């Protein structure tokens, strides 16, 4: 395959298998499969790190407490008074995005065709090819995350300030900016979605091109910037911007 076809093959999500329940046929793409892997890893890690907790922390409990304190301080410094309601969800999104953006450095499973050529077992002949790629390079995932952020902002504004004060806050400080404030509710999730999607997709395309050209030591050195730093920064910026929007809605 030439370069363009290989690249398009890497970017677009593939159908792995279909789940047939209740008469519906639900397609499962490799994005969903990678998300399940991340969820399984995080749930098992959360259960394993919080068993046998002692009052004086020792060992891995130190790490857990450091992570939770970091997230709490970060949310408290941005939102202010009502931070306990939000720190659980925003911390979860932060940890999920940190793993999801970075996960393409774990792409060490050989694909099904290569396994078939190595071992000639018939089970590998018909398996769909699957490699671990960041799920946020699919715009569905980032659109869902942005949609959840804006719904959280909307409901936090309506519930914490009572509905009348929330409606009146559209007209502050000058009544003429009310349509712009309404438009903000559409522009902000779009920009969140495309910022995350564009950054991760761009970094992934550059890494694929480098791997196609020179698969030796060069990708490892460059993937420190493109995969790790870029992914971590975009996760941080996503949660930071969501907390700023919530703080502005609560005031």
């Amino acid at each position, binding site marked *: 395959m030439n370069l363009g076809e290989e690249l398009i093959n890497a*970017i677009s999500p593939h159908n792995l298998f279909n789940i047939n329940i209740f008469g519906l046929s639900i397609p499962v793409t490799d994005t969903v499969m990678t998300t399940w892997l991340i969820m399984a890893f995080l749930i098992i890690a959360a259960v394993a790190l919080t068993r046998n907790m002692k009052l004086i922390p020792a060992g891995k409990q130190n790490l857990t407490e450091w992570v939770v304190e970091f997230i709490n301080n970060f949310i408290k410094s941005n939102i202010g008074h009502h931070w306990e309601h939000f720190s659980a969800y925003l911390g979860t999104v932060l940890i999920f995005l940190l793993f999801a953006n970075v996960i393409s450095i774990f792409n060490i499973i050989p694909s099904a065709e290569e396994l078939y050529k190595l071992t000639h077992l018939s089970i590998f002949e018909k398996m769909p090819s699957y490699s671990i790629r960041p799920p946020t390079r699919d715009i569905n995932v980032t659109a869902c995350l942005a949609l959840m952020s804006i719904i959280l902002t909307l409901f936090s504004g309506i519930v914490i300030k009572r509905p009348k004060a929330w409606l009146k806050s559209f007209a502050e400080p000058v009544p003429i900016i009310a349509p712009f404030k309404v438009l903000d509710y559409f522009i902000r999730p779009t920009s969140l979605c495309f910022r995350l*999607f564009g950054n991760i997709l*761009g970094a992934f395309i550059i890494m694929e091109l480098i791997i196609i050209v020179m698969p030796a030591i060069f990708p490892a050195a460059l993937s420190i910037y493109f995969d790790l730093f870029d992914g971590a920064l975009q996760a941080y910026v996503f949660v930071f911007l969501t907390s700023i929007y919530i703080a502005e809605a609560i005031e």
Partner: protein
Amino acid sequence: MGVNGLVALAAGIAVFTGVGAGIGIGIAASKAAEAVSRQPEASGKITTTTIIGAALAEATAIYGFVIALLLILVRWQA
């Protein structure tokens, strides 16, 4: 000019938004260097603020890149 020529031209114009991001982030970095030179003890906070500002300013360049990518992937007639 066929469809492919227009698609390529449009994609080239769309990526021009990178110029604005480059200038903006350059200005932010220069102000950060000035601020560190004035008060070297606050260099941790200054670095954090610079990085956050750069990540936000880069978003407009990324929008142009995404549009160019969509043009080439969806509208290229092989």
